[in-house]
C-alpha cells in the first residue's frame, strides 16, 4: 500500500533525525566563591554562551578562594585561598569538567590575592598582599604539583594589590595601590629581578593591571580616579613609559584586551567601557555606543577563548553574564545568557 510505504519512509526519517542530532562545541568556566569556600563550574556553549552548571558544582576549596587560573592543557586548576594562605590544586575530569582537589595544599605567603601563569604552563606566580611578596612555583607537567623556585618568595613593595605577566613570560609587573606605583621585574627561570630604573607612577586607587596580548602595552585601572593609565613596554628591558591617562566610567576594576580594543569593567557605573587603542601612541578612544550596560555591577571580566563573548561577574547580583563581541567594532551586545552563583563570585577562568 503506497500510504504505508510513505509512512514507513517518514518513520525512518524520524528515527534518523532523533538519533542523529549533532553535538555542539563547548568550553568550561570556573568561578571562585570566597564566602562559600568553593569553586563553581559551568559548561558554556561556544555559539550561544548558554551556561549549564556541571554536576557536583560548586566544589570545595580552601578558605576564601580569591583568584583562579587554568593550565594551558586544561588539566589542572589552581586557586589561591586568601584566608589560609595556600594554593589549591584541582584535577579536571576530562569528560565532564568537574573538579577534584589534590591534597596537600601548597603554602604561600600571607593573603595570596592574585595568580598568574606563563603561557607554557611552566611557572605559577602568586601575589602575597600582606607579606608583600611574590611566590613563584615550577609546575610539574604530569601531576601539576607545585615546587617553590630558589629564592621564592621574592619581596615587593608593601601591600601589592595586583600583578600581570607579559605574554613572553619575561617580565612581571606588580601594582601597589598605596604607593600608586608599578614595579617591573624580569623573570628568568622563575627567578624575579627588579628591572633597573624607577617604578612608574599610576593614578589613585589602582586596582587592576594587564598586558596586551602583543606584549606592547600595559594598562592600569585607577579606581579612585576613574581613569586608565597606558604604558608602552620595552620588550628588551621590560621598562614602562607612560603614554597617557584616559577617563573611563566610575571605579574601574578589571581590564581585558582583544585585538585593538580595551574592555574596562566600571564597577561604580555598572557598565563596560570599550576603547579602541591606537597601536603606536596607545591613545584610547571610546567606540560608538560605549559604555555598554551590564546586569549588576561588574567586578571582573573574562573574554571567551573564541573571542565571541565577554563574561562579567557581579557580586551584587551574584551572576555571570555574557555579552557578545563584535571583533571588528568592539561593540558589545547584551545576550539573555547568564548563570547565577550560590555565593558572590570573585574571579573566573575559562578553558580553551
Amino acid at each position, binding site marked *: *500500500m503506497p*500510504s*504505508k510505504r*510513505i*509512512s*514507513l519512509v*517518514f*518513520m525512518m526519517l*524520524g*528515527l534518523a*533525525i*532523533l*538519533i542523529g*542530532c*549533532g*553535538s*555542539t*562545541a*563547548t568550553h568550561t568556566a570556573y568561578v571562585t566563591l570566597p564566602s562559600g569556600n568553593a569553586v*563553581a*563550574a*559551568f*559548561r558554556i556553549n561556544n555559539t*550561544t554562551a*548558554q*551556561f*549549564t*552548571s*556541571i*554536576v*557536583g*558544582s*560548586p*566544589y*570545595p576549596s580552601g578558605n576564601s578562594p580569591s583568584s583562579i587560573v587554568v593550565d594551558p592543557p586544561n588539566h589542572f586548576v589552581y586557586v589561591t585561598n586568601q584566608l589560609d594562605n595556600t594554593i589549591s590544586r584541582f584535577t579536571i*575530569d576530562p*569528560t*565532564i*569538567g*568537574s*573538579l*577534584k*582537589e589534590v*591534597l596537600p595544599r601548597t603554602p604561600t605567603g600571607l593573603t595570596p590575592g592574585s595568580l598568574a601563569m606563563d603561557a607554557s604552563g611552566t611557572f605559577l606566580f602568586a601575589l602575597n598582599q600582606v607579606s608583600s611578596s611574590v611566590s613563584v612555583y615550577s609546575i610539574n607537567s604530569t601531576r601539576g604539583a607545585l615546587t617553590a623556585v630558589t629564592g621564592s618568595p621574592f619581596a615587593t613593595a608593601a601591600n601589592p594589590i595586583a600583578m600581570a605577566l607579559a605574554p613572553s613570560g619575561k617580565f612581571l609587573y606588580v601594582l601597589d595601590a598605596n604607593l600608586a606605583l608599578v614595579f617591573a621585574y624580569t623573570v628568568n627561570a622563575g627567578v624575579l629581578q627588579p628591572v633597573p630604573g624607577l617604578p612608574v607612577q599610576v593614578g589613585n586607587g589602582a586596582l587592576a593591571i594587564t598586558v596586551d596580548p602583543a606584549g606592547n602595552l600595559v594598562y592600569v585601572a585607577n579606581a579612585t580616579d576613574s581613569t586608565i593609565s597606558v604604558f608602552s613596554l620595552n620588550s628588551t628591558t621590560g621598562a614602562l613609559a607612560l603614554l597617557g591617562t584616559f577617563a573611563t566610567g566610575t571605579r574601574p576594576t578589571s581590564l581585558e584586551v582583544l585585538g585593538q580594543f580595551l574592555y574596562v569593567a566600571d564597577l561604580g557605573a555598572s557598565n563596560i567601557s570599550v576603547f579602541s587603542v591606537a597601536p603606536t601612541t596607545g591613545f584610547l578612544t571610546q567606540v560608538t555606543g560605549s559604555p555598554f550596560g551590564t546586569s549588576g555591577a561588574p567586578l571582573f571580566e573574562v573574554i571567551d577563548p573564541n573571542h565571541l563573548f565577554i563574561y562579567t561577574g557581579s557580586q551584587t547580583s551574584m551572576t555571570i553574564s555574557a555579552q557578545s563581541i563584535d571583533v571588528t567594532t568592539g561593540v558589545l551586545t547584551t545576550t*539573555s*545568557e*547568564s*548563570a*547565577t*552563583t*550560590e555565593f558572590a563570585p570573585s574571579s573566573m577562568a575559562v578553558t580553551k
Partner: protein
Amino acid sequence: MTIERVAVPCKRGASFIFLVFSVVMAFSSFSVGQVAPRWEFFGGYSYLRFDSPTLGYPDWSNLSGFNGEVTFNITTRFAVTADGSGHYGNQLTVYNYMIGPQYDLRRDKSKFFFHGLFGKAQNTVNISTSIKDGFVGVGRAFAAGGGYDRDLTPRFTFRVQADYLNTNTFRATQNDIRVSTGVVFHIGQIGRRPKL
C-alpha cells in the same frame, strides 16, 4: 544554582511525535484482533540517547542497558503497563520506573501499541570530588511511545519499541530517546475468536 536552558536544537520531542503519528497513519487500517493474552511480560536490550548536556557534559550520551515491562490487558484494546529500565555508560547510570495506560491495535499474529507512562527517574553521575564519590539526581519521569509485536510462537512474541522520555533531575529537564527490543511472554487469554 539557577540553570537556564534553551530548547533542544534538534526539536527532539516534535520529531518523535511526528514519528508516532506516521506509525499510526501507516497502520490505522489494522483491524482489532479479538483475542489477547491477559498478561504480557517483556524483557530485552535497550538503548538510551541521554540528554547529558543538561548535567554539564559536552555532548549527548549513548547508553545501553535493559528494559522490562509487565502489561495487564483489561480488554483487547486497553491495558496498563508497568515499565522499568536501566541504562549504563562510562560515568552515567540511568534508571526509570513508570506506569501508565496502553492502547493496542491488534491483528491475528501482531499488534501495534502506544502508551503514556509516568513515574520516577534516578540518574547517577559517577564522578569523584574531594568530598563525595557519585551524585544522584531523582525526579519525575514521563514517557510517550509505542512499538510493534510479532508472534513467534503462541507464547512468545518479538517486540521492538521506541519512547520519548522526559525526566527532571539535577534541577534540569532531560529529553531522551529510548529504543528497546526483546521477547514478550504471554499467559492467559481474554476475548474470543469469531465463530466460523
